[in-house]
C-alpha cells in the first residue's frame, strides 16, 4: 500500500506536510471561534484530524491527544458500517458510541466527512468536540453513578447528519430531544463548519499536486516519520518491561481497585508493543475505557517521550502497536458496561502505565538523547466537581469547576516540573479566572492557591498543584457532584523521585463565617472534612458548607537527596516547600539563625543514605549533580554516582538493588504530599536504591501483599 520513498523530493514532501498542517490548524481555529462552550474554548477539548481513505492520520490538530486514537477507530467504524452503502461526496457523518466507534466517551461527538476527488474517495476529515451534554442521568455527560451504558445518555452509530449536502433535520431533532442544552447543536454546526473549511482546502491542495502525487507524498511523510521513530526506538534496549496501575472505582459506597497491567515489548526491529492483557474485570459503570480511550492514551506517551519535535502522522502506527486485552476487562469493556468517564479513569491510568513501562525501558539505554528525555508525569488524574445551586430567583445554576487546568507537571531529567502546568495529555488547556467562574454560576471562592509540598519530592521536584475552596453563594439549595479519577493511587515518580499528591474533594460543614466577618484562609477551617466519593452524582450541601478541592501535583524525578541546596533555598523563599519537608525529605539542616548549613546537610544526607542500606557505610558520592543513578560505564551498567555495577533486570550480573517497602499514604502525608487513605486495602512505595551509595534508583507503587 505505502509507496516506497526511495526517490522523493524532500522539499515537496515538506511543502505537502506544511499544507496539511495548515488545514487542520485552520479547522481548529474555526471550531474554537465558533464553539460556544468552555470545554472547547478554554479547556480546548476538541480535535481535528485529516485521515487517509483507511483512517490513518495525515495531520492532527487539537489539544486532547487522546483523540489520536478515536479518529482512527472512528473512521474504521464508518467504513465498516457505511462502506457498502453508497457514500455521497457531500455526506457528513455523526457518531459517538464508544463501543462501536471507539469514542472516548459519549459526549465526545465525532463529526466526519469523506473527501472525494474526481469520484474517488481519497481522504476523511474528522472533528471531535467534548460537548456540553449528551443526556443520561447526570448533566455534563459524566455519569459517575450510572450502573451501565444505558444511563449515560444518547449513543449514536455512524449516521448521516448531512445527506448529500442536505442537513438531516430528523437527526438534529433526535439529538436536541436527548440533550439538556441547545449549545450541543450549535457545536455540531461548528464542527460542520470546520469540515467545510477542511474539505475545500484539501481539495485545493490535491488539485495543485495531482491526486497520485499527493498520495505519494503523504506516504513519503509517513515513511520519513516512521524511519525517524524507528531510529529512536532502536536506541532503547530490546526486551520486555511491565508496569501496573489501578483504576479507582468507589461508586455506591463501595471501593475497588482494578489492576491495569501494561507490558511493553521493545522489539529487535525497533517497534513498541504495548499490551494490556491481564487487566481486571470491567466495573459496573462509568470507569471502563473504550478502545479509542486506551489506544489514544498510549500515543501521547510515545509522542512526548520520543517524537516531541515533529508533526504526527500514521507513520507512528508502523512502529507502535497496542493490544487492549481480553473482552470484558476495563481496557476492553463489553456492553452494557458504563464508559462515560473511561478516558479519565482507565484511559488516564493506561497512560500512566504506558509511561512507567517506557521509562523502565529507557533507564538502561546508552543513548544520551534518550537518557536526557526521561521524565516523571504530573497532572494525569483529573477531578471535576459540579456545584448546582438554586438561586434566590428560583433558577438553577451549575458550576463546572475547571481548575484542573492547573495540575502540576512531573520533574524532568533536565529540571523541575512546572507548577500549574495542566493535564499531561491535554496540551493547551487554559486556567479559567475566578471571576469567570463566579460570574457564570452561584459560587464564591474563598481561596485558590499553590499547595506547598504537594509536588513529589525529587532531585527535580514535581510541580506543585492547587488547593481551592469555594461555597455555594446566594442560593437556597445546593448540591455537589464529583467526577474524579480518585485520590488513593498517586502517579509514580521517575528515576528515584517520589509520587506527587493526588486529587479529591471534601466538604467542610458550616464553615462559612457570619456575614461580614473576614473569610477563613487555608488551615483556619476548624470543622472536620467530610470526604466525598470520587464518583458521586449527588451530595446534599448545606448553605454554609465549604467545598475544598485538592488537585493533582507533579511527581518527582531523581533522588531528593541529590537536590542542590541552592535549589532548596529558592523553594523555601518562594514558599513552594515547607522547612519541615526540606529537613525530612531532602535532609536539609538549618543553622541556629535559620540559614542553610551546607556541611551539616551533606553529613545528614550521608546518614539518610546509610539508613537505606540498613546502617552500612555508603560509598562516597564525589559529584552530586542531579542525575539518574544507572548509567553505562565501559559497557556495563553501573551507578553513575559511586561506580558500583548495578543490575536492573533479571539477567544482569551487577549488584542487586536494595529494596525497602513503606506504607504509601503514611510516608507521603508526613511530608505534606496529599494522598487519601484507602479503606479496603493498602498501597506501598517500593523503594530501590544502589547497594553502594544508597542513592534511590526507582520508586514503584504496589498494592500491599
Amino acid at each position, binding site marked *: 500500500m505505502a509507496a516506497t520513498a526511495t526517490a522523493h523530493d524532500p522539499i515537496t514532501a515538506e511543502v505537502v506536510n506544511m499544507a496539511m498542517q495548515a488545514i487542520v490548524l485552520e479547522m481548529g481555529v474555526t471550531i474554537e471561534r465558533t464553539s460556544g462552550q468552555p470545554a472547547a474554548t478554554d479547556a480546548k477539548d476538541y480535535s481535528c484530524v485529516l485521515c487517509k481513505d483507511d483512517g490513518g492520520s495525515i495531520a492532527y490538530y487539537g489539544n486532547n491527544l487522546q483523540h489520536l486514537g478515536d479518529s482512527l477507530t472512528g473512521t474504521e467504524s464508518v467504513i465498516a458500517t457505511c462502506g457498502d452503502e453508497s457514500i455521497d461526496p457531500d455526506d457528513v457523518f455523526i457518531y459517538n458510541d464508544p463501543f462501536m466507534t471507539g469514542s472516548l466517551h459519549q459526549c465526545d461527538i465525532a463529526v466526519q466527512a469523506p473527501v472525494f476527488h474526481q469520484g474517488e474517495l481519497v481522504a476523511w476529515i474528522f472533528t471531535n468536540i467534548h460537548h456540553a451534554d449528551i443526556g443520561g442521568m447526570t448533566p455534563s455527560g459524566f455519569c459517575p453513578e450510572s450502573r451501565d451504558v444505558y444511563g449515560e445518555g444518547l449513543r449514536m452509530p455512524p449516521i448521516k447528519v448531512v445527506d448529500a449536502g442536505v442537513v438531516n433535520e430528523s437527526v438534529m431533532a433526535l439529538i436536541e430531544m436527548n440533550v439538556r442544552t441547545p449549545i450541543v447543536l450549535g457545536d455540531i454546526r461548528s464542527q460542520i463548519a470546520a469540515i467545510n473549511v477542511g474539505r475545500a482546502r484539501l481539495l485545493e491542495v490535491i488539485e495543485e499536486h495531482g491526486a497520485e502525487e499527493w498520495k505519494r507524498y503523504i506516504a513519503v511523510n509517513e515513511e520519513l516519520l516512521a524511519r525517524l521513530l524507528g531510529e529512536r526506538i532502536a536506541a532503547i534496549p530490546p526486551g520486555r518491561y511491565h508496569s501496573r496501575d489501578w483504576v479507582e472505582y468507589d461508586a455506591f459506597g463501595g471501593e475497588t481497585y482494578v489492576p491495569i497491567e501494561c507490558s511493553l515489548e521493545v522489539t529487535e526491529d525497533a517497534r513498541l508493543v504495548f499490551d494490556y492483557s491481564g487487566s481486571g474485570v470491567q466495573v459496573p459503570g462509568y470507569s471502563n475505557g473504550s478502545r479509542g480511550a486506551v489506544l489514544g492514551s498510549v500515543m501521547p506517551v510515545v509522542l512526548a517521550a520520543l517524537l*516531541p519535535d515533529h508533526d504526527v502522522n500514521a507513520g507512528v502506527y508502523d512502529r507502535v502497536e497496542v493490544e487492549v486485552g481480553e473482552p470484558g476487562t476495563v481496557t476492553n469493556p463489553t456492553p452494557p458496561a458504563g464508559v462515560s468517564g473511561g478516558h479519565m479513569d482507565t484511559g488516564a491510568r493506561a497512560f500512566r502505565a504506558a509511561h512507567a513501562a517506557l521509562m523502565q525501558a529507557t533507564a538502561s539505554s546508552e543513548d544520551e538523547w534518550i537518557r536526557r528525555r526521561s521524565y516523571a508525569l504530573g497532572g494525569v488524574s483529573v477531578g471535576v466537581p459540579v456545584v448546582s445551586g438554586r438561586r434566590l430567583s428560583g433558577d438553577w445554576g451549575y458550576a463546572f469547576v475547571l481548575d484542573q487546568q492547573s495540575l502540576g507537571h512531573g520533574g524532568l531529567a533536565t529540571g523541575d516540573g512546572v507548577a500549574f*502546568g495542566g493535564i499531561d495529555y491535554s*496540551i493547551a488547556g487554559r486556567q479559567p479566572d475566578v*471571576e469567570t467562574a*463566579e460570574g457564570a454560576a452561584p459560587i464564591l471562592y474563598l481561596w485558590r*492557591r499553590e499547595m506547598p509540598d504537594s509536588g513529589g519530592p525529587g532531585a527535580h521536584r514535581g510541580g506543585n498543584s492547587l488547593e481551592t475552596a469555594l461555597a455555594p453563594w446566594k442560593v437556597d439549595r445546593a448540591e455537589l457532584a464529583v467526577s474524579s479519577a480518585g485520590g488513593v493511587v498517586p502517579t509514580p515518580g521517575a528515576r528515584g523521585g517520589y509520587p506527587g499528591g493526588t486529587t479529591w474533594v471534601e466538604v467542610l460543614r458550616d464553615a462559612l463565617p457570619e456575614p461580614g466577618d473576614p*473569610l477563613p484562609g487555608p488551615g483556619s477551617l476548624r470543622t472536620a472534612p467530610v470526604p466525598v466519593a470520587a464518583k458521586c452524582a449527588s451530595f446534599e450541601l448545606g448553605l454554609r458548607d465549604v467545598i475544598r478541592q485538592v488537585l493533582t501535583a507533579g511527581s518527582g524525578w531523581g533522588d531528593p537527596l541529590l537536590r542542590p541546596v541552592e535549589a532548596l533555598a529558592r523553594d523555601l*523563599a518562594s514558599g513552594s516547600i515547607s522547612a519541615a519537608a526540606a529537613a525530612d525529605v531532602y535532609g536539609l539542616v538549618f543553622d541556629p539563625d535559620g540559614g542553610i548549613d551546607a556541611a551539616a546537610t551533606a553529613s545528614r544526607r550521608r546518614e539518610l543514605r546509610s539508613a537505606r542500606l540498613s546502617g552500612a557505610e555508603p560509598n562516597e558520592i564525589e559529584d552530586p549533580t542531579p542525575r539518574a543513578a544507572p548509567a553505562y560505564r565501559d559497557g556495563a551498567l553501573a551507578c553513575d554516582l559511586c561506580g558500583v555495577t548495578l543490575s536492573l533486570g533479571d539477567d544482569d550480573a551487577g549488584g542487586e538493588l536494595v529494596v525497602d517497602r513503606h506504607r504509601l499514604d503514611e510516608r507521603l502525608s508526613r511530608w505534606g504530599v496529599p494522598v487519601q487513605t484507602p479503606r479496603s486495602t493498602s498501597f506501598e512505595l517500593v523503594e530501590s536504591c544502589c547497594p553502594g551509595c544508597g542513592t534511590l534508583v526507582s520508586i514503584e507503587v504496589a498494592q500491599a501483599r
Partner: protein
Amino acid sequence: MQTELIGIDVGGTFTDVVGMAADGSVVGAKASTTPGAHVDGIMNALSGLAETTGVELSELLADAGQIAVGTTVVTNAIAEMRGRRTGLLVTKGFRDTLRIARSPRVPTVDPFAQSAMPELVPRALIAEIDERIDAEGDVVVALDEDQVLSEVGRLVEEEGIEALAVCYLWSFLNPSHESRTKELLGREFPDLFLSVSSELYPVVREYERMVTTALNAFVSDVVGSYVEELDARLSSAGFSGRVYLGQSLGGSLEPEEAKRRPLHLFNSGPVGGVIGARRIADAMGLSNILTADMGGTSFDVSLVREGRPDVIHRTVMERFETGMSQVDITVVGSGGGSICWLDERGAPRIGPHSAGAVPGPACYGRGGVEPTVTDVAAVLGLIDPDYFLGGKMSLDLEAAREAIDSRLGSLGGSPEEIGAQMSRIIVSNMLQAVRQVSVQRGRDPRGLTMFAYGGASGLFAAQICRGIGISHLVVPNLAAVFSASGMLAADPIRTEARTVQWSPQSGELATVNTALCEMRGQAVANLADRGFGEDEIELEYVFAMRFAGQTFDVDVTVEPRPLVEEDREALVRLFHERYGELYGAGSVWEDFPVQLMTARVIARGTRTKPAPARIEAGGDLAAARRAGRSVYMPDLEDRVEVDCFEAVRLPIGVAVPGPCIVEDIDTTIFIPSYAEISRDTFGGFEMRIES
C-alpha cells in the same frame, strides 16, 4: 528641503528615521541600533538624515516641529524582566494569581519545552488584604483599612518596593475598595507609584487585569528615564518642538501620559508600518490591504479592513496575557537572517533561529556559516553582490554557496538548485502567515492589496501574492525604513475600556450610556488638555460582543453617540453580520441571545498633516536600465538573463514586464515572469500579478 516632522523606529538591528517636509515629500536614513543606549542610535540616525538632506543636525532639529518615536524600551524591559521592584495588593486567598496565570503551559506535546511563568512580583512582595466583593458587586467583607496601611508600610520599609499595583476581585464592577486603598496610600505614601486595576483596566477576568496592572507598575520608570534622556539630548542638539511616542494601538502618546500608562508603548515600532501603509493606501484610494513586513528576523503580517487595522484586545507580552489592545500583527520567524536547516527526517526548515546582526548571513563575510534566507536570495542572483546597501557593503557569494552546500547539500543539486527549492519553503512559510490573517479571519485575500516593506519583502512578495491569489502589490517608497514613516502619520490617541455586561434585547440603555459617557468624558478631557479642540477629536465606539455562553468576543464598531431604543435590533444585526463575515456563512447562531461584554471608547486628536507627496512625471526607462544579470528563476528552474533597473530613475506609470529586478539603495524587488511593475505617483512601486 525643510523637515517638519520626523518619525523614528528603533528596531532590533537598525534605527530608522524619516523626515517629512510641508509638501509631504520624505527622506529616510538608517543607523545601527545601539543596545542599552538607544538614544545614541537615534542621534546617529538623525545625523544621517541631516547629511542626506544636506543640512547641519542643529538646523534639521530646529526646523522640525515634531518628532515621533516608536520605541522598544517597554518591549525590552518586559522581555528581559528588568523593571521596578513592584509590590502587589490582592484579595485574601488569591496571592498566587500571577503565578498560576492562565497555566504556564505552552501548547506542545513536549514536557521539556515547559517552564514556569517569569516572576513579575516575588511572593514576599504580595500582600493579601481582608476584603471581598462578589459577582454582583456586593460587599461580602469590608476593606480592612488598617491592614492596607500596615502591609504597604511593611512592603515599603522592609522589602523596599518602588511601585505598587492594586488588584482586588470584582473591582471593575465595584471599585470602592480599590479607590479607598488609593486614597489611603496617596495620603500615607505620596511618593509611591500606584497602579490601580479599576482605573487602568476595569475589565472582567482578574488574571488579565492583575498582570496588566502589575506590568504597568513594573515598567513605569523605564519610560520615565527614557523620555527624560531623549528630551535632554534632543534639546541640547537644538530641538524645541514636541516629542511623541508611538502606541501599540497605532496612535501616539505624549511623554507625560506615557509615564502614567507605559504599557501603551508596547510593540509600537511594527505598528508604525501598518499605520504608514494605511496612509499611503488612503491616498491611493485603497481601503482593504494586507501589510507584509520582512525584516532581519521575522515576517510580520496584518490586515486593514475598510481603512481600519484589525485590533486584538488581549495582547500577549512575552508570556503575559494582558488586557492591552494592539494593532493585530501576526509574526512568523522567517526574516532575511533566518537560518535554513534540515531536521532529522532530512526535511527542510526555516528559522526560528536567526543569524542576527552578528555574525549575520554567510554572505556578509563576517564568519557566518549557517545559510540564511539572504544567502538563498544572493545565490539565486536576486541581490546584486556589489550593490548591497547601495554599494556600502559587498556580498561574499562564495561563502553563501559554501554555507548552502555544507548544510543543505543532502537535498541534492547545485547551491542554486537547492536555493530555488529553499525559496519554495520560505514562500510557503510566509504564505501561512498571510493565510492566518486573511482566510482564517474570514477575509478572501483575492480582493486585497498587499503592501510589502522592510528590507527583504521585495524579494518574495510577488511569489507570496501569486500563492494566495492577490493580484495587486505595492512596495511603498522608502520601503526599508517604512515603519519610521508610519510614525509620521500617528495621531494622539486615547483609549478607555470597561466591562459592561449588557443585553441588547433586554438591558437598560442607561447602563451602557452611562459607561460610554464617562469613558468619552475622560478621553476627550485628556485630549482637550493637550490643546485639541472639539472639532479635532474623532471618536470611535467599539463593542466587544458574543452569543450568550461563548467565551470569545467579536468587535463591532458603532456610531459614537449614546444608544437609543432603535439601536437594539441594529446592534444585534451588526453583530450577526460581523460574526458571519468572520466565521463563514451559516455559522451565526440565529436564535441565541447576544451579549455586550466590553465597551471601548477610542478618541483621536486629528491635525491636518501633509498628504503623501506626488511625483507627476520624470524618469526614463532607458536611463534606469542597468547591466542585466543572470538569475536562477525558481518558477522556471533555470538561470535566465534578466533586466535590472534603478528604482529612482524609472518613469512614473510605465509598466515593465517581468522577469526583471528593480533595485534601490536598500531594497531589491524581484518581478517574476508572471508580473509587471510600474513606479507609482507616490514614489513607490505597484505590481500586477497574474493569477
